């Protein structure tokens, strides 16, 4: 156990090593990848060399295909994520406030969560057609549950003493929500958002697997079926990139919204 300087005590920082950290992990991974293909540990058609993937990337980028599929997926993801978030937070809020509601709804919600998409794929196709709607729905379903549980935990973690304060000030339900519950639950909500944003990508892809003629999920399937492993990897890396950007956006939001936490770490010393 060692004492470090307090963050709020005047202090010098080393920014360089910190800024490099995110790239370090990637670099190591890239080198490892190159190494594996060089050593021919797996045949090239299972793990193609970085070079081949890069070539395919450039090629699909230039012929515009990558872009088209990416736009499709991102669009559906955006809508699905948004709807899933709203639904998750809204229902989570109601459940947090009402234990009975939780007991009533949890069997249904849990059932939906644990049902494989293939089981309700026909319904999906019949209800929502083969267009974007069905993908938006799968995305929404993926995002919904993590956001719901974290909202429940977040809202329930609001200090009762601050609730009292708000009551004594006759806060309306809406004020209670916006001025107390949301900011107090913010760290947990953002945790849920990090999760949801990342999972939303896979949500759309699952939908695209059931039936689609565009989107990165479709591209993955197409590439798999035509044994074009480099193309699989291009699509997958694109998915990973999107997910990473989403994650980064939430992390940025976190940095902004939770600035007070680091400024208040008065007694912080590890």
């Amino acid at each position, binding site marked *: 156990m060692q004492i470090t300087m307090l963050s709020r005590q005047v202090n010098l920082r080393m920014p360089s090593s910190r800024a490099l950290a995110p790239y370090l992990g990637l670099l190591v991974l890239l080198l490892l990848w190159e190494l594996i293909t060089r050593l021919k540990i797996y045949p090239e058609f299972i793990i193609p060399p970085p070079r081949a993937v890069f070539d395919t990337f450039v090629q699909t980028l230039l012929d515009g295909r990558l872009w088209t599929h990416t736009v499709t997926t991102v669009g559906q993801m955006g809508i699905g994520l948004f709807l899933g978030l709203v639904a998750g937070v809204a229902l989570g809020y109601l459940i947090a406030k009402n234990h009975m509601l939780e007991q009533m709804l949890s069997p249904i919600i849990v059932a939906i969560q644990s049902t494989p998409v293939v089981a309700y794929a026909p319904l999906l*196709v019949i209800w929502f057609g083969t267009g974007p709607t069905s993908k938006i729905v799968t995305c929404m379903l993926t995002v919904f549950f993590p956001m719901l549980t974290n909202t429940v935990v977040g809202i329930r973690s609001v200090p009762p003493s601050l609730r009292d304060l708000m009551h004594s000030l006759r806060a309306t339900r809406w004020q209670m929500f916006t001025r107390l519950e949301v900011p107090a639950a913010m760290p947990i909500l953002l945790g849920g958002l990090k999760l949801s944003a990342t999972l939303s990508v896979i949500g759309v892809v699952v939908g695209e697997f059931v*039936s689609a003629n565009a989107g990165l999920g479709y591209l993955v*399937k*197409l590439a798999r079926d035509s044994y074009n492993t480099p193309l699989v990897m291009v699509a997958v890396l694109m998915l990973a990139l999107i997910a990473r950007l989403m994650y980064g956006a939430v992390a940025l939001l976190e940095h902004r919204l939770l600035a007070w936490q680091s400024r208040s770490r008065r007694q912080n010393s590890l």
Partner: protein
Amino acid sequence: QDELTDQTFFMTFVPNIQFASIYTALEKGYFSDAGIHLTMEHGDEPVGVDLIAAGQRQFGLVSGEQVLAARANGRPIISVYEWFQKYPVGIVYPENSGIETVADLRGRVVGIPGRFGASYTGLIALLAANDMTESDLQLQEIGFNAPEVMCVGAVEAAVIYVTNEPLQINNRAADGDCGDITGVEVFRLSDFTNLVSNTVATNEETAANDPDLVQGMVSAFDLGVRSAINNPAEAYLLSAVYVETLPLPEDLETFLTAAAEAQATFLEENPDADREIVAEQRADLLASLQEQFDADTLLQFQILLASIELWDADQLGYSDLEDWETTQTTLIAMGYITEEQDVSAAYTNAFLPAEE
């Protein structure tokens, strides 16, 4: 029994009556006779292809177009036995819908699992054989839900496996459970042209270094197919152990057991019975079954018979260069592969049992 080599055989989908010939070969000991202890393994076809190509498995079921696509992408696999002699894909359409020729499909809404896999390949080839292209239809992806989607009237026709969905839809229609549809008919790809369908594949290394093993495998497989063709009732009964969902009520079992025994005796007495005769016997068997049993009970048996039609040929397992070339042309048209390859390297008839 002396030493048997362990072999894990990669198969697509899940246990299914369409694999009856393999179950028959297992149950009748053809594999162990060839010195092979066979374990079956089910999974996604591309996964199986990669496993075989990487040498993790030595044999598996792979369809012809997958062999070509995989080879085009550096996977050294090779077909050694063309199990399905006819490509199983077709287009199903309701009777009395005014559709009579493939050309009548122009402008109609046609369902397809997706723009991938055997159905898509089959469709493209079927259209090409009729001087049409994809853009002549309103193609709609529906996943593997053709019966459902067709019965609710969301599509006017659908690309399907001829062994399966048409029977499903017909059964539903017969139950009055398929909307306005009273029955369906099928355009079979094999009536227009042919592609290479399910084959037994191995990797080039095994084919080159262990010909005896391949030979044994192929001959056991072949015996199974032959046996199923000749005695489908027996094949159906033997499959019951492997296919959990196989309907086998007692009365059907009794019936089939009797039929199987009768057929066995017949075959013993007539070792040289030719294809036509055996085919007639199958038709008779079905007819007498249909008198006694309802369509739901018989569905799986019918699937078996439909499959047998696709296996049967003058020389079982034999590959035609022409079919492989058509397959390649189709794949190129679809953009699945970009460069022509020497398709004769993708298959060999060398391991087929000698004709008697």
